[in-house]
């Protein structure tokens, strides 16, 4: 069989399996097995590649970050962060929307998951917003879009997945630092939009928190507020690898929740460990299977051929980057984030490198595109969670989401075409 027919077999089978609703990890694995059978390669290599990839200790950061987010959500740290956000921005018009966005900024900087953010902050704030007269579609839209900050603002386990999918060539430290400015820009854009909407619809500001109470709230939330620093500072300064910083955050969150806030008993850890295990297991097999599939793509010269083909389409870097953004946005509307990171990174990173785009910069572009995809129908896990909490249909939520999509797309264009937005901070720290 010639390479062309092997290519058709692998990608045809992969697409057919996807459409049959075979989970993505198994689509990747089965396609890799099919290639080995067709190309007379020993299928042992698929199992070997998955096992070796999953034994990489950097991967331990993923279950640790997920567990840390679970402990913080169940252990009362999330609600304290909401209280702090209330002190900081609650008195602005549309105060609860502002609190929602700023709380996502704080909490996202810990959990790294937009679904965890939406379910923990949304379940507390959406009902309160609706009770105070905010429209349901607006409340859901603010919650869903602001939760994407968790994917961009470090620590983000999706950034670790990207780093691994890039073959470990992209430093996690640089990726984390590159996410700060874009994440803050998203937060600022959403806050501006929420303020303008609040003025037009007459959403009220919250009553200012008395100074003494504000001080109590902030002091009480200090253990939650320092958690991102516990993770970020040691990684940024190169003291420890990502998984060790993540485990320190897990231990810290457990100590604060169990002995400080006393909101989690030892018995409460069983379900948390199990929940984190389920989500992590799904991500780890995805990364393992993607490594096997990536090997197949390398055998078939897919990245190099795609690079040549894309470069022949247009000489304009701007057009190519716009095209790649559109493709990622389109893919993000019907596929979840982690599978897309592991599938698209090995294919698109060589193209971007050929275009002269820094791999760290591309990481932020990729994460931002796919984060927007999490908020868009027909498949958007964050959107689904937000709609379930808000008790509205996806169609109703989408009506409220349109202005927020526009704001996020504007930030995406800025991040894409102004590399300094992502690269300035890692460059400055490296100096």
């Amino acid at each position, binding site marked *: 069989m010639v390479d062309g027919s092997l290519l058709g077999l692998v990608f045809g089978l992969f697409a057919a399996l996807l459409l049959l609703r075979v989970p993505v990890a198994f689509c990747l694995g089965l396609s890799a097995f099919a290639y080995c059978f067709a190309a007379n390669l020993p299928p*042992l290599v698929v199992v070997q590649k998955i096992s070796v990839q999953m*034994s990489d200790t950097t991967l331990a950061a993923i279950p640790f970050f997920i567990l840390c987010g679970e402990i913080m959500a169940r252990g009362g740290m999330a609600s304290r962060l909401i209280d702090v956000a209330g002190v900081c921005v609650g008195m602005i018009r549309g105060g609860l929307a502002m609190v929602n966005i700023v709380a996502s900024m704080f909490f996202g900087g810990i959990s790294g998951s937009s679904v965890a953010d939406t379910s923990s902050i949304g379940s507390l704030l959406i009902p309160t917003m609706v009770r105070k007269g905010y429209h349901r579609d607006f409340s859901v839209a603010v919650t869903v879009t602001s939760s994407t900050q968790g994917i961009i603002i470090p620590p983000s386990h999706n950034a670790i997945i990207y780093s691994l999918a890039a073959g470990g060539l992209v430093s996690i430290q640089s990726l984390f630092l590159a996410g700060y400015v874009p994440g803050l820009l998203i937060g600022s854009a959403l806050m501006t939009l929420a303020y303008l909407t609040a003025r037009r619809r007459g959403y009220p500001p919250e009553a200012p928190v008395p100074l003494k109470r504000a001080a109590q709230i902030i002091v009480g939330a200090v253990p939650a507020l320092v958690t991102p620093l516990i993770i970020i500072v040691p990684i940024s300064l190169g003291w420890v690898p990502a998984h060790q910083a993540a485990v320190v955050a897990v231990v810290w969150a457990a100590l604060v929740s169990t002995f400080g806030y006393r909101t989690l008993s030892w018995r409460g850890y069983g379900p948390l460990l199990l929940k984190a295990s389920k989500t992590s297991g799904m991500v780890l097999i995805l990364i393992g299977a993607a490594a096997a599939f990536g090997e197949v793509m390398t055998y078939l010269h897919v990245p190099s051929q795609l690079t040549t083909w894309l470069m022949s389409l247009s000489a304009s870097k701007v057009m190519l980057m716009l095209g790649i953004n559109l493709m990622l946005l389109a893919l993000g509307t019907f596929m979840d984030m982690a599978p897309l990171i592991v599938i698209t990174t090995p294919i698109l990173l060589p193209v971007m490198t050929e275009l002269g785009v820094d791999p760290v910069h591309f990481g932020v572009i990729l994460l931002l595109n796919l984060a927007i995809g999490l908020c868009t129908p027909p498949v958007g896990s964050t959107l689904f969670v937000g709609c379930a909490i808000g008790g509205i249909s996806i169609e109703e939520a989408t009506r409220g989401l349109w202005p927020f999509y526009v704001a996020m797309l504007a930030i995406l264009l800025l991040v894409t075409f102004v590399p300094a937005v992502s690269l300035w901070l890692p460059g400055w720290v490296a100096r």
Partner: protein
Amino acid sequence: MSAFMRVLTFYLARAVGVVLALLLAALVALATLETVAWALFEVSWPQTSEISGLLLVWFGFLGAAYGIHGRVHLGVEIVIRRLPRPWRDGVLRLASALVALFGVLVAFYGAALTSRVGNTLPATGLSAAVQYFPAVVAGALMAVFALEEVLTGPDQAPPAEDRDASP
């Protein structure tokens, strides 16, 4: 047959769930020990990193199998949502059968790999086969959990607390 499978997978999933929670706790303990030992005493043991890697392979494979029972694996639903009910059920059973096939392949070739490996791991001196043995166990579990879905059909959803959202 399907009633037997349901009971079997229920107990298997509970057992795997306990093992997963213990594995994650062990990973946390090991990484904490590694971090504290280095930060306070500048001591590091190459064995801890190797054992962490082995635990991760067990954790990843067993988590993948458990995820089949808990239906947490991410897939593309855009097509099957538009299918009429009987077709949709048929397609979902077919998808589960394909997942079972993947489990069988992983278990079979995992066993072949385990039996062929002759070298040892550098730090612990354990046979490198221990790195591939989780594939045998988890592959078999994947096949059993997916087969249960083939037999019982897509409507027999697991308990709500067993399901989860994606990251």
